[in-house]
């Protein structure tokens, strides 16, 4: 019990004093996850919307695959990316293993299906609501997608936030492909695992607090950003 109290106190001071190591690790976490989020959203939001409004031959199959991909264990994703990027793998020459880029690749693979799936779900409902009107108004395919994305932007934001939540807290895959190297690929989650293993609960707890605070404040920031323009909605 005293371990924990001590840890909490130490953690408090580390945060208050803006410990440089803590700061660096936190910023790297944010950088890796936000980069992955931007890439994953750029793929998943249009793709999920497209899936919702277009009928094509392998649509059902695509959706099943998407849902299956959502359940991929991150550790396995990490392993596969590791094999692909390792020196003897097909992309070995790029020398990406144990770099933040490798971590971004793994994260993108993990969160893209999640964002696409939530987007698809939300857009399908909106499309069912709008379908008759948009057909009657003689809209082009592109006008339909734009209308749905604009009017469903709150849902899309929620989908992206879910991706962020999954990304920032992920540890298995980025541990494998990043290697948890000090000053290079160490992020909040991998550092917590390491410090806990070493028995340094103070640092581990401090990192944990920062992780939680990051997750919460990004959520709040995005929600309040979107609130200003939708005052009086619903």
């Amino acid at each position: 019990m005293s371990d924990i109290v001590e840890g909490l106190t130490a953690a408090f001071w580390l945060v208050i004093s803006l410990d440089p190591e803590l700061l660096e690790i936190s910023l790297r976490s944010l950088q890796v996850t936000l980069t992955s989020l931007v890439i994953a959203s750029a793929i998943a939001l249009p793709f999920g919307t497209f899936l919702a409004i277009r009928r094509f031959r392998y649509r059902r199959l695509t959706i099943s695959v998407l849902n299956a991909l959502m359940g991929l264990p991150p550790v396995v994703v990490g392993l596969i990316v590791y094999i692909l990027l390792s020196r003897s793998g097909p992309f070995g020459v790029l020398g990406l293993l144990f770099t933040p880029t490798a971590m971004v690749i793994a994260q993108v693979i993990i969160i893209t299906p999640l964002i696409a799936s939530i987007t698809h779900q939300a857009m399908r409902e909106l499309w069912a609501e709008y379908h008759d009107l948009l057909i009657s108004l003689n809209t082009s395919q592109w006008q339909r997608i734009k209308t749905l994305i604009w009017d469903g932007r709150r849902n899309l934001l929620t989908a992206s936030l879910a991706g962020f939540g999954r990304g920032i807290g992920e540890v298995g895959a980025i541990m494998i492909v990043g290697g948890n190297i000090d000053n290079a690929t160490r992020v909040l989650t991998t550092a917590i695992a390491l410090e806990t293993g070493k028995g340094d609960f103070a640092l581990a707890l401090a990192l944990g607090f920062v992780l939680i605070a990051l997750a919460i404040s990004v959520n709040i920031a995005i929600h309040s950003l979107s609130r200003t323009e939708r005052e009086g909605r619903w």
Partner: protein
Amino acid sequence: MTNILPLNLKDVMVKRRGKRLIGPVSTKLGNTGITMILGPNGSGKTTLLKVMHGVERVSAGQVQWAVPDHEAQHHQSYVFQSPIMLRRSVIDNLRYPLQLHGTPKAEQEARVSEWARKIGLEDHLSVQATRLSGGEKQRLALGRALIRRPEVLFLDEPCANLDGASTRDIETLLLEAHAAGTRIVMTTHNIGQAKRLATDAIFLLHGEIWESGPSARFFDAPETPELQAFFRGDIIA
């Protein structure tokens, strides 16, 4: 202005999963007037209206405007039985068809404020459309349909769930639009409304045109026993 009328329907048939919904239907919509489509529930009114508008696939027969279909489409509007509101403000709903069409900004603003006034929603411009009352939604849907300046306006039971005052507002707007030259085709099962508005009428039963004609004869001297029974308020099997 191009004239897309008359509209000719020739032996039109709509089947879904082997079941005949309407047909064979042959009729002609002339250049002017308000045509009422009457009939009991399930007689095929909505299906027929959608066929005319070109959003229901026909299984047989022809639907022919005076101009090619893709051109005719730009000059028609359709108001659905339960109004479809975009999840946007009232003003953005009104503006939407003009944006699609690429109308210049200044003209958009002028037409939007003109129509907001006509439909009596000028004090609700920034309200979310999904929050309006039933009558307000229907007026907005009508304004959004008319702001495109269609030659032909289709309406599917526009007053089905409205009270007297709201119904009167809608009817006033329709008569104004008609006076301004809009061809109107609508369904209703409110016989009073049909009599007030129609210049001619079609009685649908079992997916077929049972009887039709100019309103004077249609309402005052119905020929078929089924239409006579319908006017008496009997239940038609």
